[in-house]
């Protein structure tokens, strides 16, 4: 299956994703968020916010074909 991924701030540089931190990633059916992070080469222990289709997602959430995934670091202020 294929999911759409967008990386922000320092995760843009940390992740293995061509096209300036955005693009599609092919992963095996039934993969969860953790598997996607490994695929992207992102550290599992680094604090981060993962949104799948605009909702907060735990590492164990199983992804579906066509999902939209956004990943960014926690920021201290807004």
């Amino acid at each position, binding site marked *: 299956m294929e999911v759409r991924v967008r990386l922000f701030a*320092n995760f*843009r540089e940390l992740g293995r994703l061509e096209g300036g931190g955005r693009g599609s990633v092919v992963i095996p059916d039934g993969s969860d968020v953790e598997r996607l992070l490994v695929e992207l080469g992102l550290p599992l222990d680094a604090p981060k916010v993962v949104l799948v289709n605009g909702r*907060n997602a735990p590492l164990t959430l199983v992804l579906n074909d066509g999902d939209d995934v956004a990943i960014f670091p926690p*920021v*201290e202020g807004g």
Partner: protein
Amino acid sequence: MKGWHGRILRVDLDSGRTWEETLDAKTAKEFIGGRGFGIRYLLKEADPKGDPFCGKNPLIMMAGPLTGTGAPTGARYMVTTLSPLTGAITCSNSGGMFPAELRKAGWDGIIFQGKSSSPVYLWVDGERVELRDATGIWGKTTHETDDILRAETHPQARVSCIGPAGERLVRFAAIMNDKHRAAGRSGVGAVMGSKNLKAVVVRGTGKVPIHDPKAFKEINGKLMKRFKETYKNSPPPLRVHGTAVTVMATQNYGVFPTRNFQTGSFEGWEAIHGETLTRTFLVGHRACFACPISCGRVTRVEEPPFEGEGEGPEYETIYALGSDCGVDNLAAITKANYICNELGLDTISMGSTIACAMELSEKGYLPEKDVGRKLRFGDAEALVELTRMTGYREGFGDVLAEGSLRMATKYGHPELAMVAKGQDFAGYEPRGEQGMGLAYATSPIGASHMRGDPAYFELLGVPCNVDPLTWKDKPPVVAKWQDLFCIIDSAGLCVFYSVRNLIKPELMAPPVGIMELLNAATGADYTLRELEKAGERIFNAERLFLARAGFSRKDDTLPPRMLREPLPEGPGKGMVCHLEEMLEDYYRVRGWDQDGIPTREKLEELGLLELDPSGPKEK
């Protein structure tokens, strides 16, 4: 007393008299400083139903016991007074260098009362205090004023002042310090203008007394080591991209307010995102006193017709002057930001008021002849020009200067003002972020993100993630964070650093790091419970003041758009803000009655009964 100087500077602008007032240790411990001292004095001295522009309304500037000590981000002060925007209490916070300088000059704060018959400024040179003529600088921008007054006093002095907007009583005029830092919200600058007070200039060469310098140094060292460790691989996102980096979060959650809160997704978001700002106009970053983050943006725009240089924009500015006005031109947003800084305007209320005018105009409620031009969402040139006109109250700017609620009421549609208690929303859509809706409605100063900021746990993963679309779980957490912010704002710290580094990383946010710093600095021996209680006391004191001014549950509300119109798109599609359900629980958690008034038992528990003239008489 250590940590606190125990010295408040009093200035009577009617007579020109200045004197020193001492502060007792019990009050200092119970109200901490900054925001806490502000409400303590306001409760004692202000008429809650008084006119904000009348001489009797005190203008209270208070630093915290950690301000100027060298504690990380101990750089802040609070301005407390009656708000000409909301008619209620306001307190507005700022950092930079001025607050630390005030403490180095030997003062915890300054209270102005009365009105000067002609423009003056206050020159505080350590112990020496003098009111000086400011007739020659009346009308100058904040940047010109800063330059002139430092030349007139001391090159290293620090200046806090108003611009033309404060002089003209624009209801959301700011007090600017160090040129680019703003006590921005609720019209504190207009109150200063009404007193004919152009500026406060401070020079301090002393040290802030610390109770246990060795312990204090050790705690600071430990905190700085941990901060460096956290960011050893890449610097803090706030240093790299500024608060503007938050655009990517709110846009992805579908809570990036767009076109006067008609929706929460902005198609032009990438053009105004923090990473875009870094690539385009960023020249450098700037830190406030003793800050390891350094989130300030030094920027320059070379694109005609929006050329300029200065600081900003912050996230809130990008929302208000950008997406909320449908403007995706970052050069125009940045230019309007510079104008706000130089004329002394709150960027949030400025943008939100223009957005409201744009909707009124598009819906046919605001005649083109009144504005003097066709006004539509997305008009970048109108944004910049209307901002300038507001600062000088020129043409339609005179209507905008009254704020969105008064303007929308004038044109028959108050429901289109996106406000709580008359103050404009910050950059978070309450339908897609339920806790923020509750925080806006119950914030004592009217809508504000800085009164508990649920965006931390609802959007930003600090200290953990809580679903922004749920509401039943929010009341106790919002109440706890509102109290936490009272502690941060009173200690003189910055929220940005404190929520990541000075609380135990749990949802209910025990302020253990703040307690350690305060105890080493003051020797007041706060227990965690005492400190949390102080936060609750300050929040309740503000509520007590509001209750005296006639505010109650009827005022803890949001515009009908938030309560009845479903969010049209994004992750929160179909949602409204479930405010009424949250309020029931919230009042219960607070120990307030169902009309939102603190109960006698709660006031007694917090030691506030003696401050409530109506209280002790009841049986």
